[in-house]
């Protein structure tokens, strides 16, 4: 009898633990909002779109000497160079030891219960890491770069790209951020991809080996880390003006491969998205914005590549390259093209699953890991469900405590 009771109690505990475990695997949506000059991180459970956490995004408190150094780094062609630091120097003389530095992130990403962001656009930048599951202090890594473009993280290693200034990495150990070396590329593979077939790109290899130029002069506008966390893909152009993927080994932060895409002359990579099976989707837009090619790289067999060409037709206004953003979830590839939201079947991207007209082009789009929902930044954060019969259904905007500025999803499957 006692044994049966014990068995029953253990079974109940097991079921409760299982339920709790299952609940904890729901995706979370992170929204940075601003209100009254302050910023906060608001966290939502994506199953019910209910707020589950709220915390202040505190300004970075920086020793005043470091702040002077940071802002002194602004190039001296400012009309009045002293404007950058005179106030800081005055306050240092007055005995101020530390100053708050703006905490406005240009972008955020969430991985492994840490939130990462980049601060600084037209001024020297830095990266931050905020632990979400423990009351630990944030970490900061200075990059001193301007013109931020993208950020990704895996296993507490952060990668941030800056327009035409390459990729910088930092963490998990403390210390300054480093630029990925794109000058010493002798060991990197140079490949040219045409119609799904790869061949060595001897011409480009020879050019780099002879001229010792940097490989990522026109990089990077988008970053993606494959789910396994082994490699980072960066979108840019090669030295022949072709769209190119720069592939970096995450563990060693080394550039290992440059894959150039042989395609239309005006083609460029609009965005990258990571799939749950380890593949990377690359959206290439060309033909005056009329043609979208979706490339799928990697995955379980690492080198499989498929390409699907999609005629954007009337979706693309004449003479304008449409805004295009990409997100992946489940077996769905979500595209926002201008003011249209489209779900494609990732197994055959030529197959449109659902479409919806939006009130305006979204500033950002993120998808849940199961592909059942996307969140769009349309001046408010709007959840859009993909129903069982493959139709889009918009829900009311999330109720936030401030103006939304950045969003990111921590997909449970990717934790």
């Amino acid at each position, binding site marked *: 009898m006692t044994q049966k009771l014990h068995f029953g109690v253990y079974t109940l505990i097991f079921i409760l633990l299982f339920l709790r475990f299952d609940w904890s695997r729901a995706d979370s949506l992170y929204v940075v909002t601003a209100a009254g000059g302050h910023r906060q991180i608001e966290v939502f459970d994506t199953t019910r779109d209910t707020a589950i956490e709220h915390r202040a995004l505190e300004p970075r408190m920086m020793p005043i000497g470091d702040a002077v150094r940071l802002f002194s780094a602004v190039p001296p*062609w400012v009309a009045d160079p002293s404007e950058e630091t005179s106030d800081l120097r005055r306050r240092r003389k007055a005995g101020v030891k530390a100053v708050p530095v703006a905490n406005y992130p240009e972008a955020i990403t969430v991985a492994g219960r840490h939130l990462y962001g980049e601060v600084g656009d*037209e001024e020297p930048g830095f990266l931050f890491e905020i632990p979400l599951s423990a009351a630990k202090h944030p970490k900061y890594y200075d990059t001193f770069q301007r013109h931020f473009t993208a950020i990704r993280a895996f296993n507490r290693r952060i990668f941030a790209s800056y327009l035409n200034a390459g990729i910088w990495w930092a963490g998990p150990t403390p210390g300054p951020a480093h630029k990925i070396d794109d000058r010493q590329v002798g060991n990197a593979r140079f490949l040219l991809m045409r119609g799904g077939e790869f061949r060595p790109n001897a011409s480009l290899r020879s050019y780099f080996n002879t001229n010792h130029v940097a490989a990522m002069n026109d990089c990077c506008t988008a970053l993606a880390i494959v789910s396994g966390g082994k490699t980072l893909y960066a979108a840019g152009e090669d030295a022949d003006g072709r769209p190119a993927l720069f592939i970096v080994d995450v563990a060693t932060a080394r550039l290992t491969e440059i894959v150039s895409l042989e395609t239309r002359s005006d083609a460029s990579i609009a965005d990258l998205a990571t799939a749950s099976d380890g593949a990377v989707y690359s959206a290439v837009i060309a033909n005056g914005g009329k043609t979208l090619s979706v490339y799928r790289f990697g995955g379980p067999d690492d080198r499989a590549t498929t390409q699907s060409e999609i005629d954007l037709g009337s979706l693309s206004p004449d003479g304008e390259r449409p805004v295009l953003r990409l997100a992946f979830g489940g077996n769905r590839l979500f595209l926002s093209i201008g003011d249209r939201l489209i779900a494609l079947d990732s197994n055959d991207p030529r197959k449109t699953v659902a479409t919806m007209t939006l009130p305006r082009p979204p500033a950002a789009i993120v998808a849940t890991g199961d592909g059942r929902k996307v969140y769009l930044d349309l001046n408010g954060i709007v959840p859009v469900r993909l129903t069982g019969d493959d139709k889009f259904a918009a829900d009311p905007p999330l109720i936030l405590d401030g103006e939304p500025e950045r969003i990111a999803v921590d997909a449970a499957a990717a934790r």
Partner: protein
Amino acid sequence: MPPDQITVDNIDQKLGRLTGDLATRILLARHSPLSGFGDTLVSMFYQENVSAWIGLAIMAEEASYGVRRTGNNIDERNIANPFSVHFTSPARWPAPCHKNALLIPDGSGKYEPDQSAPAENTVDGRCAVDGYRLPSFAESAQHAINAIRRHGLDSYRETSGYKNDLNDRLRDLLRVQRDIIFGK
């Protein structure tokens, strides 16, 4: 001419001066919205004894020739000020408007972000401001020239190596646009 021998210091001697026509054709080939300023670029830089090739390389490095793409964050302020001249401190401006440092002070000016632009990277409406405006191409170029003459090229970036980066830019340009530059 092997590209690795080309530098910002010798390109005029090795390759000849950049002409307005050539600058225009290069900018057109790059799909740049600034292709109408080829002549202005060349005349202003050479007038101050700074190679216009350097000006072209800075436009590439700082603003991707003003070509807007998803993710590159190039907006109308970068296009108006492709040399990234800071007329004020970025820190003076509230987030998300630090890029207003690219605006030129003008008591009678008014900056209203173009919200109707259908292309990428529309500027946040909160960045509207009185007393400032978008600079002209010539104003951006003139302040860039002043900075180069007073402080040197390496002062153009927070970290060292800007001159090397511009050398790379020129070498890439000679490769990508070789048909236009060498007339082949």
